[in-house]
């Protein structure tokens, strides 16, 4: 199989899906988007959270927020099944579930004054569903904050040049916002100035490492997260994410160009390795007995591995949180929501799976590309010690495959002797692309936690207005989740599975996130489906196009979580069972409760 063929097939599928499934079906037939209807960004404009944004700026924000490490690490881990099965799931999940889920969450929120999908659930599933859903999401966001505080602090402590770049990037983004909004200069000129500064910043960062300990970074980033989440969106979030979009597109465009420069080199990886993989693939902590057992059946466990690249519950919270409050025209939602999700799928399929399939067997690819072992050794690749891509961890799998494919492609133009330098350069670029969205996700998560918190206490507004005003104050509502997240990210303890290893406290419950996040996706899609059916009154075949994927996802995720509870949890040490096990068990119980509420809502809508 040739990479160029897969590239063309993937691009064609995405193009057709965007026009036929997204535009014609979702936008025109189901949601009936209307450009003349005022969006919450205008109707509830407050200058902080409700601020209309240019559609490309919003696309950048939405994408940068939904794309943490998920679209990269998930598919890289899923290569344990081969390259074809993960690619199939990314394409299928992306088009029929993930992008539909993201788009409808945005539009449902826009039609309800910019409130979250959790609050919308009250209209179709009752008040109980709403508060369960809000509390569930708020705790999940605290966990995300803990994880991202820890991941970002670890990255900056380990890669001090990345820390310098992050420090330089913020003032450049602020400058862009000030130039456009305050000075009033042309967006194109402001973009040019900012991008030149970013390039200079990247180059300078290479020679200016900033050293701080992990614990030091946790404190700095916790403070950053509080400040950034409370600041007006036009001031930091919109300009920063707009500039981020350029980095993202350079990353994806390079992934598209590489196969075009390698028209005759074939994939060296197997399309399917096996339909069942080891437990580590579905997040069983390394070293535990299930991590090495054959329990990860491709279906139904694949959503526990590949999240963001195909579908993720976190996206509905972003879509109905920050994105819906900034949408300036209902027609923009397709590009932002559906298009944003397809772009994330393109990252997974074209920038992760395709390069990995190409360079899978290092000896084979070296032979077909005419690269000598010495040249590979110069690039730091010992193919005797590491014969194939599966010998590497998930993140290095991605850096290596992306760097290798790019170096191979560009060495066709610049000569094979520069392969080692190109490989090292592109591998570093890939690592930076992975880390560049970490800060965005960190402060967006905190902003979303603030929204969920405010919506959770709206019942207090009429009864105790003073207390309501105090606890929903934007600074207080930003501080609470970050402090809780930092408390879980800061301390370390010996890993109960392998006491020679030290882990951060949040790691005890983090393995539960993969499942709870996908459960959230299923519940959000069910809510949107019911919204389409009961509120928009879309009946017949069109409604089944949402109901069937929603039910399929619910069944898949529920089965995957049950497998997790049966095969993984009992073998974990007590501390993990108390943390992760309890969360997954509670999630499954809530899952069944909410499906009952969904069935009742559906029944009530049919009677009406």
């Amino acid at each position, binding site marked *: 199989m040739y990479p160029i063929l897969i590239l063309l097939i993937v691009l064609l599928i995405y193009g057709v899906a965007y026009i036929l499934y997204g535009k014609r079906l979702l936008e025109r037939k189901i949601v009936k988007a209307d450009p003349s209807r005022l969006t919450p960004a205008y109707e509830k404009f407050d200058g902080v959270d409700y601020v209309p944004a240019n559609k490309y700026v919003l696309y950048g924000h939405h994408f940068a927020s939904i794309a943490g490490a998920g679209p990269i690490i998930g598919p890289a881990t899923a290569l344990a099944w081969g390259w074809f099965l993960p690619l199939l799931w990314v394409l299928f999940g992306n088009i029929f579930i993930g992008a539909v889920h993201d788009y409808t969450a945005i539009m449902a929120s826009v039609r309800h004054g910019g409130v979250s999908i959790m609050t919308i659930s009250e209209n179709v599933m009752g008040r109980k569903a709403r508060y369960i859903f809000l509390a569930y999401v708020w705790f999940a966001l605290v966990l995300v904050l803990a994880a991202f505080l820890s991941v970002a602090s670890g990255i900056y402590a380990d890669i001090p040049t990345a820390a310098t770049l992050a*420090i330089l990037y913020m003032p450049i983004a602020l400058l862009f916002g000030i130039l456009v909004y*305050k000075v009033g200069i042309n967006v194109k000129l402001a973009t040019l100035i900012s991008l030149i500064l970013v390039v200079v910043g990247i180059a300078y960062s290479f020679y200016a490492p900033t050293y701080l300990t992990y614990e030091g970074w946790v404190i700095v980033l916790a403070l950053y997260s509080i400040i950034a989440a409370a600041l007006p969106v036009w001031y930091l979030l919109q300009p920063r994410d707009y500039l981020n979009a350029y980095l993202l597109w350079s990353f994806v465009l390079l992934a598209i160009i590489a196969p075009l420069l390698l028209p005759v080199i074939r994939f060296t990886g197997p399309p399917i390795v096996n339909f069942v993989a080891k437990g580590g693939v579905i997040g069983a902590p390394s070293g535990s007995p299930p991590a090495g057992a054959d329990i990860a059946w491709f279906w139904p466990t694949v959503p526990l591995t590949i999240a963001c690249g195909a579908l993720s519950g976190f996206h509905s919270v972003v879509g109905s949180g920050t994105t819906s409050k900034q949408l300036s025209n209902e027609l923009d939602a397709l590009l932002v929501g559906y298009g944003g999700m397809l772009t994330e799928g393109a990252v997974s399929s074209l920038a992760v799976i395709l390069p990995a399939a190409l360079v899978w067997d290092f000896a084979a690819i070296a032979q077909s590309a005419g690269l000598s072992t010495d040249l590979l050794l110069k690039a730091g690749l010992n193919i005797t010690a590491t014969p194939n891509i599966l010998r590497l961890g998930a993140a290095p799998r991605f850096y290596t495959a992306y760097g290798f494919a790019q170096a191979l492609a560009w060495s066709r133009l610049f000569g094979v002797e520069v392969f080692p330098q190109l490989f090292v350069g592109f591998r570093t670029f890939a690592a930076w692309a992975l880390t560049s969205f970490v800060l965005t996700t960190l402060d967006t998560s905190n902003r979303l936690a603030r929204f969920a918190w405010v919506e959770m206490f709206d019942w207090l507004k009429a009864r105790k207005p003073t207390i309501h005003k105090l606890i929903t104050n934007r600074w207080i509502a930003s501080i609470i989740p970050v402090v809780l997240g930092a408390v879980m990210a800061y301390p370390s303890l010996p890993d109960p599975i392998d006491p020679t290893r030290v882990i951060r406290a949040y790691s005890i419950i983090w393995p539960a996130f993969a499942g709870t996040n996908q459960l959230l996706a299923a519940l959000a899609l069910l809510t949107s489906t019911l919204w389409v059916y009961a509120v928009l009154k879309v009946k017949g075949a069109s409604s089944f196009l949402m109901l069937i994927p929603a039910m399929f996802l619910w069944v898949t995720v529920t089965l995957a979580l049950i497998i997790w509870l049966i095969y993984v949890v009992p073998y974990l040490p007590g501390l993990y069972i108390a943390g992760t096990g309890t969360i997954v068990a509670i999630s499954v119980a809530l899952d069944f409760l909410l499906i009952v509420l969904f069935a009742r809502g559906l029944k009530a809508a049919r009677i009406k």
Partner: protein
Amino acid sequence: MKTKEVLGVIITVIAVILILYELLYVNLTVGSIGKKGAITSDAVLIASGFLLILIGPWLWLGEVPVAIRKFIEAKTGKKL
């Protein structure tokens, strides 16, 4: 100028000085900012600059740019 704006200007100037001092003086003379595995004064200074630069211009320039405010008023017909 209001007190808030003056405070914003002061914070912005301090933040810019801290960042430039660490990047252009300390880094060029020492070769890095801070020391591996330690919390040094240089690391604290640049981290403070990083956080202060987020707050300073915001206090200085105010919450809603006039351009956005006027645009919203024209679109909604409501006076903000």
